[in-house]
């Protein structure tokens, strides 16, 4: 622990979070539905593990509180207390408090503030009602420790002159099977003193035919010179106590004690007596004295066997108990088994791997290109095999980062319950698509926007129970979280069956603050999505979906920074659905490479719809009317050459890449179409952060840098330019195009 305790503490913190989360989920489940013994067992185990690990880190205040929870859960498991709403509520609150304890004490290394202490006392009081003393466990402990000490009667007889300890060992015959090595233990004695003599007694070895190689038959008489206490010596044999006869005689013990020892041992008395004299433990005189001092009460050998039998009897009784308990356990469904196995890997290492794989993809593309130029067929073949493998490696590496969204969704069970209670609304959360996977970084970053949207839906979307009943809706509101994969991206939907948005109110407000040009007639969807505009989420503007803390524009900004989009559909009286679309990963994209002059640009492939040739005639016409005619459709466009101010004359033949973003199409006019390829996104330096139209860069196989186009902003520019042109022809031009 001394090397880097912090590292282990971090694991403990992560583990505690996990376990508490697990407890919370089980508790929520208990409150809502039927349960079996396995679930409660998992619950108990989670609390027990947190307590146990916290103990290892000396986090006493966590241990002490967890202990109470564990007690209560223990009684719950043993069906001593009934599971009911109040109990679950206090346990949920206790989980919260545990989480707080872990955060404050383990993470920040601080003490609880007064408010938290008061809360803890309150919780302790509430838990106390369910917890009664665990006196029986204490009782067992006392009786057991009493059993450990081997009583030595000291009655009469003179002291033995020897300065040495005398240790008499008759191990249980099963000692080898228990994994103990008697010889090792004897050697271990030399750690605490000097072993003066060891005499081995082979009397118990049966005839060769009856001998069992796995059974231990030997006895030992040992003299040890040591200043250690009896306890220390006794501890050496701590693990061998059961079923073994271990006698430890301090120096200068009474001879009578030796006599008693001799009698209690299975070997013949005379033989042992002689032996002790021979090893110098006793003098002949001492032995005779002792023997005379007491009456001989003959006790023939076999004590150890008897003891062994007793123990086996005891063992078989407990074995039955254990068996029964085990069977019961294996029948019970263990909620943990559903969890897949995980290896915890530092995120940094994974990022590094993915970065390297990215470089490998680039280098592979370079090698591939050279091979194709070389006209060397075998080389081309082998590079193409390598490219295929590299692609597979890349896919697997990216999958490593993929995490199921279910865990993030499940967190909302609690949020919905708590916020619902707070507002007096009864709401069901329905989760679908929990197994959809997306990049871990995205999962982490999507939590806040999701939280905001969920709270909004509960707070402003779903009506109060009375209102719902009056409207003929079911009294209980429903909130749905859904996730699904859709052509290279993941869609996350948050939908409620509430009142929907007030279209007219939004439109009025939008006109007031000039978001919509006077003459424009936006569609319903365009109007609803206005609530994502900055400056729109001030209170009292929109009754049923106004921000709480952060506004909806922040939600959109967060999602946009993940290269995602957010859209809102609403139907008055039926409900609202917010749909978030995110790329599956941030690291690599399928790109479409285009050339303008000598530069290369990359368009994310999922946004490309088609490519068409731009004839000279069409170009002339387009310049005049500022849109292209795509089979009769109006297509706004951007001349990349002009946009990026690429030097040089226009190419003789130009092409249009038709891209789509958020339902709007635009054409990007380029010189050359270079085809699809996969590429690793390199973030742009800070200095480029204000550049519009570029979202990143990548390195081509040839070593050249290509810029990745920010299609959303280019489309917006094109569309805005087009509408400006259109507006110019309108009489009252006060609009501000975004």
């Amino acid at each position, binding site marked *: 622990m001394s090397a880097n305790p912090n*590292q282990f503490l971090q694991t*403990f913190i992560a583990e505690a979070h996990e376990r508490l989360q697990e407890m919370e989920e089980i508790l929520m489940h208990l409150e809502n539905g039927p349960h079996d013994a396995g679930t409660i067992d998992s619950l108990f185990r989670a609390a027990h593990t947190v307590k146990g690990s916290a103990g290892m880190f000396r986090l006493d205040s966590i241990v002490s509180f967890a202990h109470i929870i564990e007690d209560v859960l223990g009684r719950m498991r043993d069906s001593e207390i009934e599971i009911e709403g109040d109990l679950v509520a206090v346990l949920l609150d206790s989980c919260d408090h545990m989480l707080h304890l872990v955060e404050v004490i383990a993470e920040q290394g601080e003490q609880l503030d007064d408010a938290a202490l008061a809360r803890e006392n309150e919780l302790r009081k509430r838990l106390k009602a369910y917890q009664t003393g665990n006196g029986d466990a204490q009782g067992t402990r006392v009786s057991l420790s009493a059993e450990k000490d081997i009583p030595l009667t000291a009655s009469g007889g003179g002291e033995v002159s020897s300065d040495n300890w005398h240790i008499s060992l008759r191990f249980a015959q099963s000692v080898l099977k228990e994994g103990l090595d008697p010889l090792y233990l004897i050697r271990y004695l030399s750690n605490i003193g000097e072993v003066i003599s060891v005499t081995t007694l082979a009397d118990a070895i049966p005839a060769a035919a009856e001998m069992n190689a796995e059974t231990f038959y030997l006895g030992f008489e040992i003299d040890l010179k040591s200043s250690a206490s009896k306890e220390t010596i006794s501890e050496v044999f701590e693990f061998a106590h059961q079923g073994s006869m271990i006698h430890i005689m301090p120096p200068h013990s009474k001879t009578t004690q030796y006599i008693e020892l001799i009698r209690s041992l299975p070997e013949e008395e005379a033989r042992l007596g002689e032996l002790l004299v021979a090893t110098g433990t006793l003098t002949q005189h001492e032995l005779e004295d002792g023997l005379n001092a007491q009456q001989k009460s003959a006790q023939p050998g076999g004590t150890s066997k008897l003891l062994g039998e007793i123990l086996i009897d005891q063992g078989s009784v407990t074995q039955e108990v254990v068996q029964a308990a085990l069977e019961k356990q294996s029948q019970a469904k263990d909620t943990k088994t559903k969890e897949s196995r995980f290896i915890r890997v530092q995120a940094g290492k994974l990022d590094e791997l993915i970065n390297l794989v990215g470089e490998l993809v680039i280098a592979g593309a370079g090698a591939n290109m050279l091979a194709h130029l070389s006209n060397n067929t075998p080389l081309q073949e082998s590079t193409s095999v390598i490219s295929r493998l590299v692609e597979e490696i890349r896919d697997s590496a990216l999958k490593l980062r993929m995490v199921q969204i279910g865990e993030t969704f499940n967190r909302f069970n609690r949020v919905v319950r708590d916020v619902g209670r707070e507002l007096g609304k009864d709401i069901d959360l329905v989760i679908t698509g929990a197994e959809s996977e997306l990049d871990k970084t995205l999962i982490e970053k999507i939590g806040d926007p999701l939280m905001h949207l969920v709270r909004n839906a509960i707070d402003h979307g779903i009506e109060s129970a009375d209102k719902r009943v009056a409207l003929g809706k079911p009294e209980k509101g429903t909130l749905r979280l859904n996730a699904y994969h859709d052509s290279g991206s993941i869609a996350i939907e948050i939908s409620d069956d509430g009142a929907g948005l007030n279209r007219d109110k939004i439109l009025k407000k939008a006109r007031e603050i000039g978001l919509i040009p006077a003459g424009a007639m936006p569609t319903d969807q365009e109007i609803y999505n206005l609530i994502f505009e900055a400056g729109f989420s001030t209170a009292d503007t929109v009754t049923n979906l106004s921000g709480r803390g952060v506004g909806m524009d922040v939600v959109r900004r967060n999602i946009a920074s993940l290269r995602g989009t957010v859209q809102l559909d609403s139907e008055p009286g039926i409900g609202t659905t917010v749909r978030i679309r995110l790329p599956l990963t941030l690291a690599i994209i399928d790109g479409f490479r285009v050339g303008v002059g000598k530069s290369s640009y990359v368009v994310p492939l999922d946004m490309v719809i088609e490519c068409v040739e731009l004839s000279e005639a069409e170009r002339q016409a387009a310049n005049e009317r500022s849109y292209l005619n795509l089979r009769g459709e109006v297509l706004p466009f951007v001349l990349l050459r002009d946009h990026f101010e690429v030097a040089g004359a226009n190419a003789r033949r130009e092409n249009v890449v038709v891209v789509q973003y958020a339902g709007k199409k635009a054409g990007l006019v380029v010189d050359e179409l270079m085809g699809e390829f996969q590429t690793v996104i390199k973030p742009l330096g800070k200095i480029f952060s204000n550049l519009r139209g570029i979202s990143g860069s990548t390195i081509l196989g040839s070593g050249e840098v290509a810029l990745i186009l920010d299609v959303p902003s280019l489309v917006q520019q094109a569309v805005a330019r087009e509408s400006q042109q259109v507006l110019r022809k309108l009489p009252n031009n006060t609009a501000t195009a975004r």
Partner: protein
Amino acid sequence: MAKTILIVDDSESIRQLVSHILKSAGYDVIEGEDGKDALTKLAGQKIHLIICDVNMPNMDGIGFVKEIKKSDDYKFIPIIMLTTESQEKKKLQGQAAGAKAWVVKPFRPDQMLNAVSKLILP
């Protein structure tokens, strides 16, 4: 060659901690998350000592010890049970199943090493 110890505990922090203590003392360590996992990790390995927790999912410590004692390959491996002070009953069950050594949680590193040193050398 260093002796190998299998540590079975469902708590990752305890596994890491024990593993660190043992590795610093010169032992090799294999980790198992629960009884079932440990049995698969065990296969084909030469193990000199097992340290295992009692309360675990899938297969608890007592079930695990029983499995070990059933196996001809592993029945001679010494086993240390990790118990807590409130688990006397479990300890007795563990002893009946064949685990004769135990360490009570929470323990100090030297307590753990001391217990191990009574069974094997590094």
